[in-house]
């Protein structure tokens, strides 16, 4: 966390944001004594672009969104669901009104329906060995076309650089200003900085509360085998 805090301090100073912002963990920042959720995934470039594609008219007549994440074995599947449901709402600009979930130990499949009938499918698994990067995919399907964060006819995301030397390496650097951080670390710093800059504290807290309610409904559904509705 030390390096992330240093990078956050660098941005705050550079852009003259006059707050005391301390990263508590990779999901939380404390700004002037107030603990806030930061939704780092919303700061990943690919999701910002997908949101633009959907909400600025490149895609018209949205029908469905499909999200998949396979993470390390020790991951909490409902924590991943929290993030993926937020991504569905964030990218689509819609609110989820119902969830149906099926769970089997370290795997979880969920179908969520937005207030206008758009269907979101979320497939989650916690099966990977330690330090194996997560595998994920996000796809929006509409009358006018498809947007996706994985290239057509591929199962996994590519990287920017591959090194085939004594030790094979690969790199994906996405932020010059925060060069040296991984994509996920970059997103944490960017999200904390956005909170400090935008000061939309009440919105962040309300979103967190709503997502926690969605996750609880999903747990209930996985237990009962029945669809759960959520007030929009």
């Amino acid at each position, binding site marked *: 966390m030390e390096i992330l805090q240093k990078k956050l301090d660098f941005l705050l100073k550079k852009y003259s944001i006059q707050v005391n912002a301390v990263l508590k963990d990779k999901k939380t920042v404390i700004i002037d004594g107030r603990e806030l959720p930061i939704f780092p995934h919303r700061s990943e470039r690919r999701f910002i672009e997908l949101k633009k594609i959907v909400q600025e008219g490149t895609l018209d007549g949205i029908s469905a969104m499909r999200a998949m994440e396979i993470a390390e074995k020790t991951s909490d599947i409902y924590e991943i669901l929290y993030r993926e449901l937020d991504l569905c709402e964030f990218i689509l600009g819609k609110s989820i009104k119902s969830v149906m979930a099926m769970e089997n130990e370290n*795997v979880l*499949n969920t*179908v969520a329906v937005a207030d206008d009938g758009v269907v979101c499918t979320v497939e989650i698994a916690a099966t990977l060995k330690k330090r194996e990067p997560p595998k994920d995919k996000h796809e929006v399907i509409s009358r006018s076309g498809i947007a996706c964060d994985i290239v057509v006819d591929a199962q996994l995301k590519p990287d920017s650089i591959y090194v085939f030397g004594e030790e094979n390496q690969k790199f994906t650097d996405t932020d010059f200003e925060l060069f040296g951080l991984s994509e996920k670390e970059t997103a944490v710093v960017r999200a904390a900085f956005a909170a400090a800059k935008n000061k939309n504290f009440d919105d962040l807290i309300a979103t967190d509360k709503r997502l926690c309610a969605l996750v609880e409904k999903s747990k209930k559904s996985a237990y009962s085998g029945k669809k759960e509705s959520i007030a929009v």
Partner: protein
Amino acid sequence: MKPLKIAMMSMTHGHTRKYYQTLIDNPKLDWVAVSTANNEVKKIFLDSISGIPCYDSEMEMLNAHPEIEAVVLASENSEHFRQMKLCAERGIHILSMKIPTFDMSEYDKMIDITEKNNVVCQIELEMHYNPVIARLKRLVSSGEIGKIRSFNATNITLSPVWAFPWQGVPEKSYGKRVPLKQGDSRFRGGALCDHPHIFDMVRHITGSDFDIVYAEAAPNIRPDIEEEDMLSVIGKMKDGTVFSLDPSWSKMEERLKIPGPGWEVFPKRMEVNITLNGEKGTIMADCFGPNVYHSGLPKNRYTVQYTYFDEWIGMIDEFVDNIRNNKTPLINLRWHRRTIEAMNAVYESISTGKSIKF
């Protein structure tokens, strides 16, 4: 072994063309004749294949060729029962398209009539003869990922309704006109009816049976067709395996009358991907990859050019072996019944908004 004297009927099914090469090349077969359902498909056939007698009616063909031992029913779903009865009563073995019927009473009559007449009735689920599936099965049985916890799969394509119009007619595809759900202008018979493979494969790979099925139909991406084109299915098998199945027509197409180059609007016309998550890891499989790509004629659009495997070779080999050696097909009517029941449960779930317990 004496070559099997085989014929084809109707020629209206989207898979009709898949048989041409196999029926010509396979030394175990003697392609005797075809009968066509209408002048349109007759012309397409005659433009593609020469030297095979082509008849305007099934009866005409069967009467002219009493030597026919087996028939591929390359027809719309609504014709299957009538044609099966016709063939079975003459002792002719049957290779049925992937959906025998959605009417379970009719389905049971199919079982009865084929068994009473002692004919082989094999269902065309060609994924079983796909080398990626063969590898997947081997990896699972060797315990590579331990017990399977989830089976997630896509069977997504462009919509065939412009080239094969019966697939856009609920009575011909589903067998009757049934509204998708109350207040919805769509009817059963769309993408789901085109994509049974993953409902079959989850049973094969897990060795378990359906326990619970839940589905939602999304808004159509083709608002001008009267059947569903986008849907999502989740559920659980009796052994606890959860599944997520996408049988949508989610890849957009040019509305061609005859499939060919330039059919794709979205670069990729078809995908069957399977992800198995187990207690010890994950397997991700693309059943039709890798491929090659071009941006050439006729549309200069970036396009996935498939380097297809030919599943039909293995399937026909099994069909001949079943007939000559009196074996039961891997995908027989009794086995496949549960798959069709699960697909009907998907429609029931969409209609009621509830999960369906088996």
